[in-house]
């Protein structure tokens, strides 16, 4: 029995079979229940853990269908349309689900109906839902007639109101003409909500489920007769599924960019791995290679009894025709592109997508914003910076001032001695080493982006005027230094403020 402390004392939030037989009820005060049966075992309720468990079960339930939705903190709605035959019919599917859950130590009530509303009502309030309840096709609304009004998913006060009106079962509500139903309620919203739920029950209003993850358009499953226990078996299943998926994608002329491999554990729960591709593909061999060094991340545990492979982010994919005889320059390039795409996929799946990037120009004169990292593109020619400049000469000015080869993400503060306050540095100390400057070029003045709203609050350094110097020290090392701020323009509240120096890059 689980309890929760609330404003109205300690209340029971969940009871198991024996406790219910002893007379404990959900919502009852703990002391009342103890008065009836003093030997009740009480545990503190942990709603977060409940949600986590439900989430795990929901992911496990993806074995039955790609569309699974968590309902409150104690229910799952599964759309098994078109999936039942994979498990030998609806009855077998429900039986399978209930036995598996009970083996995992969970008590489940299940019902199968035409609409989510009817299934919800039957699973929670129908007699015999412990062993799975299946309403005949097209008769869900009839099956639900005998259930009480709480099965309509209405607010408690609406249910109370209905019972005061003498309406106790769904059947009674269904028999009433709609117009009279509306007249019985004081507010129109309440009447609407009752009608809405009734319509959902019989399917007049469609009730779409919000799945855990959007269902993949291409998905292949493989149940195992014997649980798979080692990586070899998993990789065998993966290769088999990849071939089947490749066949289906080929038929549709499509390729996927995201492949998701889910393993369902015999003892409940699931584990999954995914690979991302830089462009649509379906070639089983290539995708298997990307999965290869991830397979060991799957812990088979007590065995895996079903596998699912799904292709997401699907796009039409035309097969480049390889020339039979001539090896012209274009086929060379295409081969190169293909190999490059494969390489980029290998690297991004190993290192993480955000760690394999390309440098792209950005329209800003602030050095740290003049570029950005983007995903490497492999289509035909590269986006060259020269082209970007020619396309937008105003946005991408061709800067001829010196720029370093390496830029620090965060400029590093240095101590500088300069001949004159506004002049280039004579010597400076960076990383505890004093460096004597023998040659310097500059300054190159970079103004802050004063036209951007809120530029002054944008951190101290980027709100200040910077003077950049390219300097060379006595050992031939070259640095890009800047002085942040102007001597004649100190901040108003700090009269003894002085500009600071930073190293921003190395040549």
């Amino acid at each position, binding site marked *: 029995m689980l309890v929760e402390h609330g404003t109205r004392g300690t209340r029971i939030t969940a009871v198991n079979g024996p406790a219910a037989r002893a007379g404990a009820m959900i919502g009852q005060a703990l002391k009342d229940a103890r008065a009836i049966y003093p030997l009740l075992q009480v545990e503190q309720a942990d709603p977060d853990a409940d949600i986590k468990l439900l989430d795990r079960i929901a992911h496990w339930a993806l074995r039955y269908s790609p569309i699974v939705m968590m309902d409150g903190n104690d229910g799952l709605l599964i759309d098994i349309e078109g999936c039942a035959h994979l498990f030998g019919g609806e009855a077998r599917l429900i039986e399978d689900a209930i036995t598996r859950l009970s083996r995992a130590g969970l008590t489940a009530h299940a019902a199968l109906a035409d609409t989510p509303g009817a299934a919800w009502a039957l699973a929670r309030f129908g007699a015999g839902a412990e062993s799975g309840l299946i309403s005949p096709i097209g008769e869900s609304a009839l099956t639900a007639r005998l259930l009480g009004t709480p099965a309509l998913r209405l607010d408690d006060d609406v249910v109370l109101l209905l019972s005061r009106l003498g309406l106790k079962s769904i059947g009674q509500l269904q028999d009433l003409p709609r117009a009279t139903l509306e007249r019985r309620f004081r507010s129109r919203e309440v009447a609407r909500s009752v009608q809405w739920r009734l319509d959902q029950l019989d399917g007049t209003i469609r009730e779409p489920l919000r799945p855990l993850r959007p269902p993949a358009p291409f998905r292949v499953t493989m149940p195992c007769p014997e649980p798979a226990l080692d990586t070899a078996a998993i990789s065998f299943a993966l290769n088999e599924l990849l071939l089947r998926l490749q066949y289906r994608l080929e038929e549709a002329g499509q390729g996927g960019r995201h492949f998701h491999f889910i393993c369902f554990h015999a003892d409940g729960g699931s584990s999954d791995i995914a690979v991302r591709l830089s462009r649509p593909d379906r070639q089983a061999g290539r995708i298997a290679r990307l999965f290869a060094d991830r397979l060991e991340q799957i812990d088979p545990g007590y065995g895996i009894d079903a596998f699912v492979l799904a292709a997401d982010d699907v796009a039409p994919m035309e097969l480049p025709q390889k020339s039979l005889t*001539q090896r*012209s320059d274009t086929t060379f390039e295409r081969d*190169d592109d293909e*190999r*490059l795409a*494969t*390489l*980029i996929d*290998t*690297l991004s799946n*190993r*290192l*993480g997508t955000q*760690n*394999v*990037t*390309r*440098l*792209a*120009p950005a329209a800003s004169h602030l*050095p740290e914003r*003049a*570029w950005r*990292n983007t995903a*490497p593109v492999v289509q035909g020619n*590269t*986006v*060259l*910076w*020269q082209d*970007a400049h020619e396309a937008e000469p105003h946005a991408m000015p061709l*800067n001829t001032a*010196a*720029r*370093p*080869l*390496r*830029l*620090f*993400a965060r400029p590093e503060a240095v101590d500088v001695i300069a001949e004159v306050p506004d002049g280039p540095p004579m010597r400076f100390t960076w*990383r505890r*080493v004093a460096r004597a400057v*023998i*040659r*310097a*070029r500059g300054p190159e003045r970079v103004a802050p982006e004063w036209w951007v709203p809120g530029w002054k609050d944008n951190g101290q350094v980027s709100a200040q005027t910077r003077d950049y110097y*390219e*300097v*060379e020290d*006595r*050992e*031939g*090392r*070259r640095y890009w230094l800047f002085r942040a701020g102007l001597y004649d323009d100190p901040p108003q509240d700090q009269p003894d403020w002085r500009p600071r120096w930073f190293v921003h*890059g*190395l*040549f």
Partner: protein
Amino acid sequence: MSTQLERLRDQIHQIEGRTKTFAALKQRESTIKRWQFGDEAIDACLPEGALSYDSVHDFSPDHSTNAAFLSLLAALLIVRLPRKGRILWCTTLQDARENGVLYGPGLRMLGLDPGRMIIAHLKKERDLAFVLEEATRAKALAAVVGEGPPLSFTATRRLVLAAQESGTPCLTLNTGRTVSASAATTRWRVAPIVGPPNPEDPAGPGFPAWSLTLTRARGSAPFSCNVCWNDETHSFNLVSPSRDGALLPREAQSGQILPYDQRGNPQRRSSLSTQTAGRGGHSQAS
């Protein structure tokens, strides 16, 4: 006979829609495809007169705090690389923090389009060997550059085999604190030095310059020299030290190539410079 053949070949080229004649293509292949420093004296000392494509070139700094300054040399060598295509530059996240990230506009200043660069940031140093090998083997890139602590001997050996198989050059830049045994085809030690002044702006930083030491190479004797990068010709030039420690451009005084003895010091015998050049030239012919 041969002229008739060439005419026929030209005709085929025209049918194929290529603009260049066969002879021009042939010429282009024989002249452009070598990867050289651009200074005859240095190139003559290299094995077969050029840096080879299908090999690993390893660069170590004279001191680990100078590791960041290796990347300019590597980038400029890639500017000299007569190949189109992408370049993969791998760096560990730790090096990116320590030495800064590769900066697009800076690459562009060197004449290397940043759009050609693919940057791979490695969270773990031990991924470096895998990434470099995979990239070198892929036959998809013009060159591969890897920055990080030195690889194990086995890893470098595998890398050399991958480079031989694919013909993709791999440059490894050692940013670690140690130098370890390596199977790299050529190994260089690099120290930044004060370059010759820019004649247009003598007060500003001059040409970037390095003291280069080839400590190991198959098929050539180790040597040491001072080179600077000439931005106008896009080539490396020999420079020589003058009395006050500053360097003069090559026009002022011819630079020297000094043989390098294994104990680590260049031998100061100027007469050897011509000998080495001669040997290099000989191996090129054979």
